[in-house]
């Protein structure tokens, strides 16, 4: 027979659950609406299955988003404020700015080169190019800043 869990941890779990219940409840109709929208745009799928699957997939995501953006906004704001004191946040911001300019400039360069040289894999630029440039330049910039300061 497993040992009984301490009462304190059960109380903590109940408190945590009580904190997220409003977000879970509020996100349910939104998830259903997403399911209905999906079913409407995809009439070749059985309606009930489409609604259920889409609602089930989006419910947790919407619940987490509501919890962070709406119900725990003050906690999120204070977390952002406290994060501003860290050098890691400064690295992150600098890397994000570098990634933004690199992506913008890089996409223009790739498009120009692709058009001029008639390279199909370069032009027209797409999501893959943007992601590779954005994530790549962000990662390189962050790592170089981190290395410089160590």
């Amino acid at each position, binding site marked *: 027979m497993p040992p009984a869990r301490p009462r304190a941890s059960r109380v903590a779990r109940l408190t945590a659950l009580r904190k997220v219940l409003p977000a879970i409840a509020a996100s349910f109709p939104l998830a259903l609406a997403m399911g209905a929208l999906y079913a409407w745009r995809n009439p070749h799928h059985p309606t009930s299955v489409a609604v259920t699957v889409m609602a089930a997939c989006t419910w947790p995501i919407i619940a987490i988003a509501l919890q962070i953006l709406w119900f725990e906004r003050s906690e999120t704001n204070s977390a952002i404020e406290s994060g*501003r*004191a*860290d*050098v*890691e946040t400064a690295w992150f911001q600098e890397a994000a700015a570098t990634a933004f300019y690199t992506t913008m400039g890089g996409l223009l360069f790739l498009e120009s080169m692709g058009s001029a040289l008639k390279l199909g894999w370069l032009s027209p630029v797409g999501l893959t190019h943007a992601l590779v440039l954005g994530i790549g330049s962000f990662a390189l910039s962050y790592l170089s800043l981190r290395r*410089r*300061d*160590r």
Partner: protein
Amino acid sequence: MENRLAELRATRGLSQAALAEVLGTSRQTIISIERGRFDPSLPLAFKIAHHFETTIEQVFTPDP
């Protein structure tokens, strides 16, 4: 900006990790401030000065 953080920390016998914990920031932040590579935010500068029972001007001085 120049600072006396390393010196003040040494007088108290505090490690970088211990000071970071007290100030609610990361050890890397302390390292970067001490090396002059990162200027802390005003709230963090106040926290540092308050912790060492001094003023911000006594800890940080602008570059000449």
